[in-house]
């Protein structure tokens, strides 16, 4: 797993073998004060993407010794930074059509709830991803 953000667990990143997806991108979109109140949007990404990203990050960060890797900074090289940003942008775009929503406090945990992203979610997901802030979990799973 390569984590882009971390607070009491990984908030955004890529990992292997996530709930049936061989390689996946995930990002937190909703969070409540209570400890089981985290909803992640996830999507499968092309196999080999994680290794390619690890190769890019290894140029400016020491090689990871642990499974969870949290680079403090994005790549300094403009080409490397562009690679990472393109990966995130493509994954976020694919969430709209192929994404899954998972409710779990830690992304590695067995989710409390899960379902596919549907059309009525899109405006809310877009708003959250554009703002960089987190929504409340109300209404995502319970009408």
């Amino acid at each position: 797993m390569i984590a882009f953000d971390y607070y009491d667990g990984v908030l955004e990143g890529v990992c292997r073998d996530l709930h049936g997806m061989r390689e996946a991108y995930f990002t937190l979109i909703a969070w409540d004060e209570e400890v089981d109140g985290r909803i992640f949007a996830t999507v499968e990404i092309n196999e080999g993407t994680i290794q390619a990203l690890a190769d890019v990050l290894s140029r400016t960060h020491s090689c990871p010794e642990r499974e969870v890797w949290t680079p403090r900074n994005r790549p300094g090289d403009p080409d490397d930074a562009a690679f990472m940003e393109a990966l995130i942008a493509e994954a976020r775009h694919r969430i709209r059509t192929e994404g899954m929503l998972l409710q779990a406090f830690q992304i590695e945990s067995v989710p409390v709830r899960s379902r596919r992203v549907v059309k009525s979610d899109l405006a809310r997901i877009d708003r959250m991803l554009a703002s960089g802030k987190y929504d409340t979990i109300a209404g995502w799973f319970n009408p």
Partner: protein
Amino acid sequence: MGRIAHAFLLLLSLALPQEGAARFLSSDPIPADAESGYAFNRYWYADASPYRYVDPDGRQSMGPSGYGFYRPPSNFFSDTTAGRFLGSVLGDPIALARSDNYNPITREYPGPAALQDAKLGLLTLAIPSVRVGRVAAAGIADDALVVRGGGNMSPKGANSPEGIAAGSGTHHSGVSGFSVESANGATLCQLCGNLPHHYNQVGVTTAGAIRSAGGDVLSTSGQSATHATVTGLSPQAASALMTPTRNPVPKP
């Protein structure tokens, strides 16, 4: 008395009270200052420094004149020219002698680079006519605020023992613990503003209080520049240290 001997006596006078920091079992009714975080630890007596201050009724510490006032934590080695000089010479080499790297002179935890510099400094001390420079120290100081979002009343609150247990894990750096915001000199508002999620309530303590309880707080990479990890405490002990405080930063 030689300078070195004097320095070690001063070191003893500073270090010994930290070992047995006595606390009250009930909290102080004086609330924390929302901006500075002063008095956030409501179990402290006399600013945790009974040799410097008095606290006649347990509510608020006072100076020798008996007049209550706010003072940031201070000590001889950081507040006086002579102290800074002695600290610059003896500072990090002291940490080399401790298993936990804590430096009671600078009140910091030197990073690996600083400790390496300190070793080189000791080598240069052994060689006449080589000038010994100031050894930089890194780490979160004892008086730094430590903030974690969430309440501690509900079992699902992030500062309850259950919430702290749920948030605990092993950071990529190898540090096991739970996430907080902490940085030297940062105010309560600044740290609350760096939380990744708006909490109505936060838990507040200091790095010194965590260390007095047997734990530690280490700067670790995360979602903000002030992300840190508290390690070495049970969820129950950590929850008890986190003084419930209303988040002074309004919801965006």
